[in-house]
């Protein structure tokens, strides 16, 4: 029962895939065994039918070939204009992808799915292959009808080549064919086809006539037809299986995993294709593994470039690709196969034979011996290929060996000479057996410093030198005593062993070192990114590191609120790549796929564009313009670059989340602020309002019965309460204005005494009972302030005095010049400040006594602080010496306060 219950993850995946499919356009392929079976004709007939049924169908591109039948069918169907592309001095008409995307037809008909776009043309194509164009059309939701021949299918490429003797260059990843929503087989028996060919009904370019004659043979056609039919049956079968319920297929997927091990040898392509066929037959997931051993690292760069090609081929066939690092291919493969639970491992057949095979078993043999949980399948090389290409490869490798190597061999020669010199010095005092040690030491040194080859050379030279210089008879290679032959043999064996061991240790150290450096570089960037806030500074750091590590210029393009990418506005830093193509970057951002050289999209572009962030959250684009493209196209470099991009994406994502959290926090804070404000204001508004309403209604209803003095006092209390409310309202308004940002200051030169006088005048009524003492030196410098705001500060401070001190409390206002500033104080000899931190008085909604009868929301001092700080000054509260409270603040006496 447990098996019957679907795995929720699996279900989710399934649902998501379904959704994606629903948004995507549908692909219909008219499939044939060879050219000439009538695919295009059938497609156009179907197109006419669809048009008649009212479908918005448009012809995107049809190979004209000058066939009257085809042209007749095309008449009356809307066709997109073709795109003239200059190529090698001539103009060719090509499919116009942008026009097709802009037209947004319901169905678009594009001939020849396997067509290669003119990569050297002007304008350069967006994708090298037409199937990629069609992918983009499908992604944007447009249905596409197209045609393809069986010989173009990537996995059948070598089979077709064997049958027909012609290798197709235009290939199509099987994935496209397999994932097509509908495939229609257009079948024509070979005899009919040959008849059509004779009748001239099949278009063949003049220069290809000879090849075509070879191709269109009855045997070939039969074989190709069978291949096409079989491919079609496979498809139908898997569709039927899917219809029966995906369960079986899914368990099959879980059960089998095919691992294809490849290396730089020419057989690899064949092994990959064989792996694909096996995986298809088993309906298994498959992975192509490239093991890079120290030995392979020594290969020339062009040899290592082959890995790029191989892994690309594997990916186009639908494989997952992995590069493994390790001292031994067998160990790395075993470990990987076990962790991934591979059931079959496919690799090339052992090439070593005879005694070498016995002495050092090949990877395949060794793997088969140690395999426990999987089968090992070896693929035999085709005879001609193995010997001829092997030789070519070896000679090529020799030709490109870097000159640096020779210096190392000379160094090994020198070591040998030094060993002999040292041995000669020791010779009078020590026995011959001890001299052997000197030579062995030399070999060890050579291995340590110069690698395997030079140390082997040193080993051989040392044995020879030892024989020549020290073994009697001296200065000849002749050996007097036969027992020395044993010495030589043992010495040579030990020396070679040391050479190999030391060299391998050295190599592993180098690999480990390289890996460590990579990790360190990544770590350096991650650490710096982690310590940074703000997307644009993060982008700067990312650029700095990427530019340094990959020797390139780079830029991180970030989208604005509308999702449009822009170059950063701040000045360019070192390594910044400001010439990047924003249009390409935009494409990358929208499609979440990389573009530029080394990718499938716009490979002619000089820079590489990588998306940052995942499909759900596209955070930006990293554009990289390397000084040397090879440095970035090497798979490990590309992986490293992707890892960097991943880290940058993570950092940007973190920043985004932090910003969201921050705005949520601010919103929450604002919410609570509003609540406090509302509670506070409602109290402070209701009190005066009830006084006013009460006094007003008393006057209105009983005014005539009251004596003049009572009426007067009621009216006066209405007025004073109204004033209170007015002040409260303006305080709230002021604070709201200041909260929106730093207040804009209308500064001017003002004298402090003048401003204090204005405030005193404003509060004249309220301060009637308070004796006021002003202490301002007559030479007080003017201050550069916003007059009305500073008056507000005085007013609020004096208002507090009026509120919180009893009548007849002495009030002092004074000022004192300081450096470039004037210090002002307002003090009273009242009850003093409430207990607690005086600085908290300046927080909003703080007031002298909790919920008293004194009006005010506790905003007065908060406003004072905002104003003083906006002027670049500071304000603080303290206890007055001798009792009471003292408030001090500074105002700038210069135009540009420090």
């Amino acid at each position, binding site marked *: 029962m447990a098996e019957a219950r679907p795995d929720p993850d699996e279900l989710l995946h399934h649902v998501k895939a379904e959704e994606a499919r629903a948004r995507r356009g549908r692909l219909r392929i008219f499939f044939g065994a060879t050219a000439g079976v009538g695919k295009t004709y059938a497609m156009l007939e179907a197109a006419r039918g669809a048009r008649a049924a009212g479908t918005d169908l448009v012809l995107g591109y049809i190979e004209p070939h000058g066939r009257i039948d085809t042209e007749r069918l095309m008449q009356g169907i809307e066709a997109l204009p073709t795109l003239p592309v200059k190529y090698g001095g001539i103009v060719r008409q090509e499919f116009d992808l942008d026009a097709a995307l802009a037209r947004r037809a319901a169905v678009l008909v594009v001939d020849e799915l396997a067509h290669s776009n003119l990569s050297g043309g002007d304008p350069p194509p967006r994708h090298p292959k037409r199937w990629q164009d069609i992918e983009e059309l499908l992604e944007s939701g447009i249905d596409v009808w197209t045609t393809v021949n069986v010989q173009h299918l990537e996995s059948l490429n070598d089979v077709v080549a064997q049958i027909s003797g012609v290798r197709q260059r235009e290939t199509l990843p099987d994935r496209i064919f397999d994932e097509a929503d509908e495939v229609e087989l257009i079948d024509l028996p070979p005899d009919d086809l040959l008849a059509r060919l004779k009748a001239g009904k099949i278009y063949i370019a003049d220069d290809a006539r000879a090849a075509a004659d070879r191709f269109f043979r009855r045997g070939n056609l039969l074989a190709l037809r069978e291949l096409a039919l079989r491919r079609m049956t496979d498809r139908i079968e898997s569709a039927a299986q899917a219809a029966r319920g995906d369960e079986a297929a899914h368990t099959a997927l879980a059960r089998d995993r095919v691992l294809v091990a490849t290396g730089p040898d020419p057989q690899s392509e064949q092994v990959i294709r064989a792996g694909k066929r096996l995986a298809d037959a088993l309906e298994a997931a498959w992975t192509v593994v490239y093991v890079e051993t120290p030995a392979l690292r020594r290969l020339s760069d062009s040899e290592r470039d082959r890995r790029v090609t191989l892994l690309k081929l594997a990916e186009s066939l639908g494989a997952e690709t992995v590069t493994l690092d390790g001292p031994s291919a067998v160990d790395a493969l075993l470990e990987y196969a076990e962790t991934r639970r591979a059931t079959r491992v496919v690799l090339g057949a052992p090439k070593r034979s005879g005694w070498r095979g016995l002495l050092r078993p090949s990877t395949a043999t060794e793997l088969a011996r140690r395999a426990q949980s999987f089968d090992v399948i070896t693929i035999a090389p085709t005879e001609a290929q193995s010997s001829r290409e092997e030789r070519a490869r070896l000679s090529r490798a020799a030709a490109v060996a870097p000159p640096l190597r020779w210096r190392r061999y000379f160094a090994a020669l020198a070591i040998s000479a030094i060993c002999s010199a040292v041995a000669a010095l020791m010779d009078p005092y020590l026995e011959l057996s001890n001299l052997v040690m000197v030579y062995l030491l030399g070999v060890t040194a050579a291995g340590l410093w110069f690698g395997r080859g030079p140390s082997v050379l040193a080993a051989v030279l040392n044995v020879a030198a030892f024989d020549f210089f020290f073994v009697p008879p001296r200065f000849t290679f002749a050996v007097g005593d036969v027992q020395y032959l044993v010495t030589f043999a043992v010495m040579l064996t030990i020396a070679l062993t040391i050479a190999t061991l030391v060299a391998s240790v050295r190599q592993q150290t180098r690999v480990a070192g390289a890996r460590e450096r990579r990790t360190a570089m990544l770590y350096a960037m991650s650490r710096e990114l982690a310590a940074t806030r703000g997307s644009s500074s993060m982008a700067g750091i990312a650029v700095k590191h990427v530019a340094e590590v990959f020797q390139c210029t780079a830029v991180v393009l970030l989208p604005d609120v509308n999702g449009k990418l822009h170059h950063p506005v701040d000045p360019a830093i070192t390594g910044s790549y400001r010439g990047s193509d924003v249009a390409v970057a935009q494409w990358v951002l929208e499609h979440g796929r990389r573009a530029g050289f080394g990718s499938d999209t716009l490979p002619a572009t000089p820079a590489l564009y990588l998306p940052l962030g995942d499909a759900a959250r596209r955070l930006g684009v990293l554009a990289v313009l390397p000084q040397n493209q090879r440095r970035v196209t090497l798979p490990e470099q590309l992986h490293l670059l992707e890892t960097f991009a991943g880290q940058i994406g993570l950092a940007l994502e973190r920043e985004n989340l932090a910003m969201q959290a921050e705005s949520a926090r601010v919103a929450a804070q604002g919410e609570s602020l509003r609540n406090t404000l509302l509670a506070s204001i409602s109290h402070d508004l209701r009190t005066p309002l009830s006084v006013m309403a009460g006094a007003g209604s008393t006057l209105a209803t009983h005014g005539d019965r009251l004596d003049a003095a009572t009426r007067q006092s009621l009216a006066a209390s209405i*007025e004073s309460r*109204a*004033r209170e409310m*007015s002040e409260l309202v*303006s305080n709230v308004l002021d604070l709201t204005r200041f909260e929106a940002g730093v207040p804009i200051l*209308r500064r*001017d*030169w*003002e*004298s402090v*005494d*003048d*401003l*204090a*006088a*204005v405030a*005193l*005048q404003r509060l*004249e009524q309220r301060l009637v009972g308070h004796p*006021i003492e*002003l202490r*301002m030196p*007559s030479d007080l410098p*003017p201050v550069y302030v*916003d*007059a*009305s705001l500073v*008056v507000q500060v005085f007013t609020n401070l004096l208002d507090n005095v009026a509120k919180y001190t009893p009548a007849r409390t002495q009030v002092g206002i004074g000022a004192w010049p300081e450096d470039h500033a004037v210090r002002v104080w307002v003090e009273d000899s009242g009850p003093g400040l409430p207990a607690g931190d005086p600085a908290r008085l300046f927080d909003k909604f703080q007031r002298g006594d909790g919920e008293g009868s004194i009006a005010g929301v506790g905003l007065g001092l908060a406003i004072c602080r905002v104003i003083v700080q906006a002027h670049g000054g500071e304000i603080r509260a303290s206890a007055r010496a001798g009792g009471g409270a003292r408030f001090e603040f500074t105002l700038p006496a210069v135009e540009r306060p420090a």
Partner: protein
Amino acid sequence: MTQAMHQIVVVEDEPGIRDVLRVLLHAANYRVVEAESAARGEVEARAHKPDLLLVDLGLPDRDGTELIRRVRAWSAVPIIVLSARTAEEQKIAALDAGADDYVTKPFAAAELLARVRAALRRNATGAATSSLVRFGSVSVDLARREVRGGDTGVHLTPLEFRVLENLARHPGTIVKQEALIREVWGPAQVGDTRSLRVCIRNLRNKLEPDPARPRFIVTEAGVGYRLRMDDAATEDS
């Protein structure tokens, strides 16, 4: 009241405030004509040729400053702005449009009546260009350039006298600091108020009974100065 009653046009859209103003001004023996919009205000001003205009800035059909500008095109009638707008820019804009004074809402009755009196007096004396201005115990003879505090002469520097003269020519109304500087120091000095501040402080020291709490030479923060002829607190009632 030997003189005919002064007539005042109140342009104010808020009926509550119109009511208060009508009661207050009637009580102070003024005739009141009410208008609830700028357009109506202009019509009433043309029709009644009032002695004073009280104008609110936030009117439903047009801004009050616009009304002031239009009235100024044909009349020198004193105009007092009565508005809830408190920012200096807004005050200055209204003064620039031609208003003589500015009272912010909420206003105190005594303050408003004092301003009204000052404006009316200026209008009565302004045309005759009376050369004698009195405030407190100080009398300023503009023609003879003589200032007396009580019975003794007060010595003013030429700059101080010119500042005082500029204030005294528009008694009771706000004189913008920019205008003062332009008149006294010349257009090049506009923007630097330091000399003006010093000059005002000196004037207060020489003329005010309590220079720290001036009663006559009053600061309108951020806008300018006003020479208060009658002290509202003492003369009112």
